[in-house]
């Protein structure tokens, strides 16, 4: 009965001062909303973070730190210290316990977005947010080495659509020091938003990646090329030779194609041929020619476009497997030279070509084989940056991890992404705790504001206390009245804050899903919210003992009359 009187009186008293009370409630509610909002965002961010990669059992890279490996392989932050040799990758991928692998080759950027060379496995096996797989918002996966699949952020930021042509530059800076239009990729697909670094990635084939590297080196000497192209026209054999050498040299320098020594051989071949330059059509469109080659290798689709003459001839040779015909008809010695030239240029694009051709100077078979390889994506780079591995069964995890960590041929490291993600998150945990502390202090500030309001109201309410005393209220009731007011205010504020946060998140859910790619699991207020409401209410009751005690003392001292 007493409690009912207390609550009813407190409630009516608050209603009477509703504007002040409302302001107090709002200020505390805002602070509570901030705290809960911060916690929610923290939770969601962590979930999103932890879900950046899922379903993968191991991430393998050159031996460095686990965090470093995770950062560059999954978050595209920083660079690998070293690569994984292709053979090693193949050996690991062939292990019986391995269900699937995703090769990752990093190192380039397109207008500030990292470019990642990979294969179809990426789209098949990459999982995030527990079990979501990559889906296409538009278009389809890449099939050829001059095709690219871009993440949602890339598409949005740069306004790309399917079939747009994009240029990839070497290095990861926003602006490449060397601008060159040499390696255009065609966008074949745009991925749905994932809320992971995938959104900010341009995906190309491993072959495409090699092409960039080769071309990048090529481009550094673009001027030289142009000049030399002229030389070619002038039939300057010597000059040509040098040219060719130059280009080879470029290859060597710029890329990891150091083992392309055979390219030198190539050019040797070119040298032999001497005049074939003319036939091969070196008229300054070296680059174009290269491009066309590349295109042709893929799907022959550009055969129709091939109006370049000499370049064509070559293309045709490569594209179709009519080696014999070629050999017999077209391939005089000169033609051989052509081919080599052509291969050379290909070599710029694809090392593999250069290699093969170099090894077997006259054998077109090799070249064509390599091209077929291109199409199959079984293209052989020398190395990749990292790879993601899925196992057939979890218990084999540690066995394989040990195998990789102790891999004899080169220093490799395998990490369990979940574990390392957790470590990384803990690293960020300090900021998280600081954020939480700040919002807790905001609540404290809100409650102090309430305390101020209560204390201020006390002076004018001494008379009210005296009236209550006169009709039989004990000083305890006066104490309780103030406590009850504080509790009502705080509980209302906390509840309002919780409701505001959840309503806000519910409202923001579609926007967040669209813009940030993660699903705000707003739902019903949970245990944490209840704890916060209770904690805020308890804290309010605690600090309200100050004005309540003062009111208690007033009511004892004042008696029935207030001396003012």
């Amino acid at each position, binding site marked *: 009965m007493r409690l009912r009187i207390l609550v009813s009186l407190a409630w009516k008293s608050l209603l*009477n001062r509703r504007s002040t009370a409302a302001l107090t409630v709002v200020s505390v509610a805002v602070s509570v909303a901030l705290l809960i909002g911060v916690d929610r965002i923290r939770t969601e961010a962590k979930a999103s973070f932890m879900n950046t990669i899922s379903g993968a059992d191991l991430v393998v890279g050159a031996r460095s730190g686990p965090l470093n490996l995770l950062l560059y392989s999954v978050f595209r932050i920083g660079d690998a210290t070293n690569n994984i040799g292709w053979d090693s990758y193949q050996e690991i991928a062939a292990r019986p316990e391995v269900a699937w692998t995703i090769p990752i080759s990093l190192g380039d950027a397109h207008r500030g977005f990292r470019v990642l060379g990979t294969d179809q496995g990426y789209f098949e096996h990459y999982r995030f947010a527990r079990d979501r797989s990559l889906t296409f918002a538009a278009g389809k996966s890449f099939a050829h080495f001059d095709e690219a699949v871009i993440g949602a952020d890339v598409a949005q930021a740069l306004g790309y659509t399917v079939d747009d042509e994009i240029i990839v530059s070497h290095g990861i800076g926003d602006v490449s020091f060397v601008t060159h239009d040499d390696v255009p990729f065609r966008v074949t697909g745009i991925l749905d938003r994932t809320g992971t670094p995938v959104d900010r990635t341009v995906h190309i084939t491993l072959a495409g990646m090699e092409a960039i590297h080769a071309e990048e080196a090529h481009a550094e000497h673009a001027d030289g090329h142009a000049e030399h192209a002229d030389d070619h026209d002038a039939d300057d054999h010597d000059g040509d030779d040098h040219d060719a050498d130059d280009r080879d040299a470029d290859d060597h320098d710029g890329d990891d194609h150091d083992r392309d020594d055979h390219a030198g051989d190539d050019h040797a071949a070119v040298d032999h041929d001497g005049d074939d330059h003319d036939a091969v059509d070196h008229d300054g469109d070296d680059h174009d020619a290269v491009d066309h080659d590349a295109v042709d290798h893929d799907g022959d689709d550009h055969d129709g476009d091939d109006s370049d003459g000499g370049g064509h001839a070559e293309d045709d040779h490569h594209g179709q497997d009519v080696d014999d015909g070629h050999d017999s008809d077209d391939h005089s010695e000169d033609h051989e030279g052509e081919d080599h030239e052509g291969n050379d240029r290909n070599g710029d694009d694809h090392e593999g070509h250069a290699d093969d051709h170099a090894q077997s100077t006259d054998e077109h078979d090799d070249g064509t084989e390599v091209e077929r390889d291109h199409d199959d994506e079984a293209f052989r780079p020398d190395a990749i940056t990292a790879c993601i591995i899925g196992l057939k069964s979890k218990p084999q995890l540690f066995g394989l991890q040990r195998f990789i960590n102790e891999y004899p041929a080169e220093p490799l490291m395998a990490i369990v992404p979940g574990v390392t993600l957790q470590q990384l998150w803990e690293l960020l945990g300090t900021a998280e705790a600081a954020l939480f502390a700040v919002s807790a202090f905001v609540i404290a500030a809100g409650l102090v504001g309430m305390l101020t309001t209560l204390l201020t109201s006390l002076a004018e309410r001494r008379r009210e206390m005296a009236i209550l005393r006169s009709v*039989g*209220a004990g000083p305890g009731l006066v104490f309780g009245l103030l406590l009850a007011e504080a509790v009502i205010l705080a509980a209302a504020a906390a509840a309002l804050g919780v409701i505001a946060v959840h309503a806000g998140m519910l409202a923001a859910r579609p926007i967040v899903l669209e813009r940030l790619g993660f699903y705000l699991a707003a739902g019903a207020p949970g245990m944490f919210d209840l704890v916060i409401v209770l904690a805020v209410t308890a804290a309010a009751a605690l600090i309200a003992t100050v004005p309540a005690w003062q009111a208690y003392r007033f009511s004892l001292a004042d*008696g029935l*009359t207030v*001396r003012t």
Partner: protein
Amino acid sequence: MTSPLAIRFSNAVFAYRSGPAVLDIADFRVEAGERVFLEGPSGSGKSTLLGLVGGILMPTGGVVEVLGEQLADLGPSRRDRFRADRVGFVFQMFNLLPYLSLVDNVLLPCRFSVARAAAARSDSESAPAEAVRLLERLGLSGEEFLERSVTELSIGQQQRVALARALIGGPALIVADEPTSSLDAPTRLKFVDLLLEECSRAGSTVVFVSHDPSLASSFERSVRMEDINAAPLEVRDAP
């Protein structure tokens, strides 16, 4: 004891903390059903006396007996209940809680006193009905009036609401502390008459405190604070 005493002060002394006595009453009695006018300027110890009668202040010496109970012998909560059950107060001004309706203000004692709630119910069919009846008797009738906010009332109207609150449930003792000092002269007399009429209907003892001697004629007996309070005047201005 010929008739039971409503109030008895016997060598009652009161001092705030360790200060000098502000009240020192050797003998002061009010008989049951008596209507006493207690006259004194402000600072004459009236408020302290009322605090002792209401059981909010405890005498530092001597005996204060109200309606047969020696309040110092009761515990604090018993004293609060005693006050709620047996005494109705009317103050100078600001008698009402601004956040309660007229009827709720009148019903306030019934919230704290089961006895007065029961008495109010026996007087009318329910306590709120009794509150409305009292307000009507005091000239505050009509629906539109009862729903008005307390703060919209004139001071005279507010004092009548306070009187209704003191009267509800028929407490044995009505203590009025300068209830008319905020009123103008004609209203003042009307208020005193109303008060005395309602108290005699209820058979309540009345102690009416005022600094205005012109009102004394309405009462059976008039007592001057100076005559009963032996404490030196200069210290009576309580802190």
